């Protein structure tokens, strides 16, 4: 064993001899180590205040996941490596020191690997809903379409980190054009609203009603247009319908009517236009998910069933599902571009295939007990109405714009706000006011700016949707939403239970049964998970040890809807390295402090 003095001489000799050793000793110096540790501690401390003052995403964007922070960690890694090297040749007394430093290096390597190859996301599962095959990552993205080529470009875009405001807009160039995208607004809660718009080209009348319920002073605004947007359901308990005449009782009603523009290149952001009722839950894919062949068309129903058609077979034909839903693949564009804001095709090569699907559902199970029927009146501009609630006698009458009337529902009053003899209904995304307790989706306000300075109309784009923006001679589709990560298998929820503490509503646990399925291998694996006891797929020790499995843990629940649960999904190939590193660090510190000859404690 060499003495301290011998080591000093050895180190000085090799430093004089070789540049490499000189750098190793410089990079591995204790002073550098202390400076790095101090600065890391300071930066982390500041970051927690950033998180407290703003949000976790802000802290992440500016510190924890910022490039300079990674450089800092790499520098620390380099310092650790070099400082271990400066002790070369290692002796028994160095064991603890070397093990600890190696452990930290392994840990950091595991973290880097996990960052690069792994992901962390969440899935919302509902009982009876179709199996889920993709995970929502907490990484908002913006998808923009080049006005020139129609090509799609996607970029990470987090409005929460530096919320865009009118006085602080974010400008993004649209690839291949001079036009710029201006984002100047962000809201955490936005909703879809139907707005009555005069339209001379329309032959159908439209109206706007104001309904005031017994629950609050805020009235509900309802806009309807004959033919295209004739009815609306107000929750489970009531519906309003605008029809040609009042005669007879309500027909078997369509519960939804919507159009979807499906883009082969960006199936997760269809352009949805919901003209009646709630969302259908149907999804479509141009190019099936399996083969991606552009001439195929896949239908995925809300119950998880579905099939793949040849596009040529199905185009222009109406399919009727057993439950009465009508699906029409109405139009096809092999290479979709936007000309004057209208979809058109440029050539017949399937470069950017898109299909317009129209669908109408006629599910007839639940019947609303309260209804208000409206029809054009005897004189132009007047409206006849018939209101009915439960078994009570219907209320009949004729009204003109501005008139108040009773819809025949207990505690409700109504007013005809507007009438248009030719109108259409436009669906508009709007931020919810703070006083409105309804849940909403985050949304961005965006518009296009032409180099000439002219600007298009600004529109709100809700998370998970896209919208077409226009300005002088240019149009582009802009999508906004969280990044979706496909899974190599599917997962569905079979049951979900929330036992409570005795005598209270406080949850004591969350128990979920799920089924993982891998179609290709024809594999179905049921699994149970509860709080603190995640389920993993594929099962087995090996995938778990190596971190190649996907881990599902209980993350959130909805007290109002016990058929639904939110699971956190983690895939972390760096797992094994992290664990090994941790073990080495603890073992190393222990042996450094307690397994050493106390006399040589100083080194």
């Amino acid at each position, binding site marked *: 064993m060499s003495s301290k003095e011998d080591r000093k001489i050895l180190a000085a000799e090799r430093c004089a001899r070789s540049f490499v050793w000189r750098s190793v000793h410089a990079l591995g110096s204790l002073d550098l180590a*202390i400076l790095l540790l101090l600065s890391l501690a300071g930066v982390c401390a500041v970051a927690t*205040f950033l998180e407290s003052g703003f949000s976790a995403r802000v802290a992440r964007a500016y510190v924890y996941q910022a490039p300079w922070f990674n450089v800092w960690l790499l520098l620390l890694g380099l310092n650790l490596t070099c400082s271990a090297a400066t002790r070369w040749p290692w002796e028994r007394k160095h064991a603890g020191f070397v093990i600890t430093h190696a452990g930290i290096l392994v840990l950091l390597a595991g973290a880097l690997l996990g960052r690069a190859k792994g992901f962390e996301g969440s899935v919302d599962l509902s009982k009876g809903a179709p199996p889920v095959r993709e995970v929502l990552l907490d990484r908002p993205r913006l998808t923009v379409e080049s006005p020139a080529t129609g090509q799609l470009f996607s970029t990470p875009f987090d409005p929460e980190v530096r919320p865009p405001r009118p006085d602080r807009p974010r400008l993004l160039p649209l690839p291949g054009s001079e036009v710029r995208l201006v984002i100047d607004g962000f809201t955490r809660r936005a909703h879809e609203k139907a707005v009555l718009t005069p339209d001379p080209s329309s032959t159908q009348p439209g109206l706007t009603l104001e309904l005031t319920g017994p629950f609050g002073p805020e009235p509900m605004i309802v806009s309807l247009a004959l033919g295209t947007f004739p009815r609306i359901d107000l929750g489970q308990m009531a519906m309003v319908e605008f029809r040609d005449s009042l005669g007879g009782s309500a027909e078997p009603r369509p519960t939804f009517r919507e159009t979807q523009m499906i883009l082969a290149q960006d199936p997760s952001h269809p352009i949805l236009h919901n003209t009646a009722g709630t969302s259908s839950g149907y999804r479509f894919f141009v190019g099936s998910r399996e083969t991606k062949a552009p001439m195929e068309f896949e239908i995925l129903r809300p119950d998880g069933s579905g099939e793949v058609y040849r596009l040529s077979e199905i185009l222009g034909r109406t399919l009727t599902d057993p439950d009465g839903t009508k699906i029409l693949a109405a139009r096809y564009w092999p290479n979709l571009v936007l000309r004057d804001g209208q979809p058109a095709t440029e050539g017949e090569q399937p470069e950017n295939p898109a299909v317009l699907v129209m669908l109408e559902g006629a599910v007839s199970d639940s019947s609303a007990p309260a209804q208000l029927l409206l029809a054009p009146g005897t004189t132009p501009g007047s409206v006849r109405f018939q209101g009915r609630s439960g078994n009570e006698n219907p209320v009949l009458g004729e009204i003109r714009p501005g008139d108040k009337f009773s819809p025949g529902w207990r505690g409700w009053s109504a007013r005809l706000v507007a009438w248009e003899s030719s109108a259409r209904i436009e669906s508009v995304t709007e931020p919810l006011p703070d006083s409105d307790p309804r849940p909403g989706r985050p949304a961005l306000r965006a518009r296009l700016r032409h180099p000439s300075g002219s600007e298009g109309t600004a529109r709100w784009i809700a998370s998970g949707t896209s919208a077409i923006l226009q300005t002088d001679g240019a149009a582009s589709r802009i999508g906004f939403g969280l990044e979706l990560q496909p899974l190599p298998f599917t997962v569905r929820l079979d049951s979900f239970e929330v036992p409570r503490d*005795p005598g209270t509503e406080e949850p004591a646990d969350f128990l979920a049964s799920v089924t993982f399925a891998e179609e290709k291998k024809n594999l179905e694996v049921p699994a149970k998970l509860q709080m603190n006891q995640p389920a993993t797929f594929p099962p087995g020790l090996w995938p778990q040890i190596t971190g190649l499995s996907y881990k599902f843990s209980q993350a959130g629940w909805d007290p109002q809807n016990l058929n639904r649960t939110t699971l956190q999904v983690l895939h972390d190939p760096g797992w094994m390295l992290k664990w090994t590193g941790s073990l080495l660090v603890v073992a190393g*510190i222990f042996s450094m402090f307690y397994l050493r000859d106390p006399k040589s404690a100083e080194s």
Partner: protein
Amino acid sequence: MIRSFFLLLLLGATGIARADVTLAENDSAYDSLAIQHRGRIKPFFGFTQEMTASLTGRTTLTIPGLGRLGSRQFILSLWQHPAGWEEAPVILVDNAALRKEIGLEGKDRFHSFARLSALPRLNQLAAEADAARASGSTATVPPLAAAAQTVRMRLGIFSSLRSGEAFRMLPPPAGSPPGVAWAPAPFQSAESLRSLQTRGEFSPAKLRAESWYFNFHPFRWAWVAWLISGLCLLVAGKATSGLGRRLGWLLALTGFFLLAGGFAVRVWLAGRPPVTNMYESILWVALGTSLFALFFSFRYRSPSYLLAAAPVVILALIASDLQPAVLDPAMNPLVPVLRSNFWLTVHVLTVTLSYGAFALATALGHFLVVGAMRKNTALSNEDPGVMHLYRSLQIGVLLLATGVILGGVWANYSWGRFWDWDPKETWSLVALLSYLVLLHGRLAGWFTGYGLALGSIAGFLTILMAWYGVNFVLGKGLHSYGFGSGGRSYVAAFALAEVAFILFALFRRPQKGLPSI
């Protein structure tokens, strides 16, 4: 004193009206009766303590004209003779700004139910807090509104006591499924209630033990033992043997066993590890500090560890004894993520144990710095006091590093990811890095004993932030089940005093001996 005692006896026996309210008999026969409260079946005595602490901030209260009342008699009186209590000033409104805002003049902190219920501004503020909370996690509740919400909660508790609704003492009929709520019982004698409590998922022996635990106050006796131990050791001074020193050892050991025993009973009663709130973590830190002090002082035959540990243990235990409203001693059920979780238990206990070691180090640091300043002599690394300090830091670093990593293990197991830069995680990392700087700085020769002592005092401030600050100041992140409020001014005053002490010690650093600090 004796007169009032007789008066109380007389009052208790006959229930004579006094100052508008009637007092019930202070009958300990009720103590071990079962009552369902906050998701648990507990002894009646524990219930009265919790309820009294919720209403008044203390477990005893003083009513003008009636004198001091224990929790049992107070709650029994409310139940048995509710008339008149709505006029008694028993509800705590401790926020002076709130008192002014809602129109309560004067410095009185206690007000009556009738008076508080008649203040429209109070309800308005509380409703604002509700709205702020409902609108999402990003909105922060204004402090005044939060304080109003607390007072409104106290009003709710008071009316549930006065109406009898809170006394859920009738077990559900035989054959009911588990988890069914118990029914409120009208006031009856302890015997007749006991005869009704023949069913239900509870053990009478355990209830008696819990009632005894709340009556006995093992932690109060523990700090008394440590206080006398510290005094004995101080008096004994540098004498290596003798009565004072032996007595000091013995009392410290007694204090430790009281603490450990009380803790063990608590774990047994609650049926879960003590890892959930500030109260339990303060007890555990005190336990850790006394354990390490005893171990080191036996191992290295030096009483200075005990002397250093005494103030830490005494302060911690007095705080937990006197502030039931902030440091809640109730054994409430855990949120699901904390239940039946081996890794969590190990992780939290390891981390908090390291806090105990660091608390010992910071106390030793104070002794060393003050001593060096008085003698105006620098401390070498070989000074026995510095060696004591270094040993405490070592065990702290080992435990903290292990605990932080175990936290990763738990997070990976329970939430799915190893490390997420959650504020609690990050601050324990900051604390660990600070102590690593301290150990490495000593190796690099940046400072010697004096600097190490000052560093261990500064390091404890990062521990304080990780321990208290994240939950009570930052109030964000996944460790949200540990959030609370209160005591902020005390902790801030402590931190400021420590910073001032460090600055002063740097300014007055010893001039003799080694050149560096």
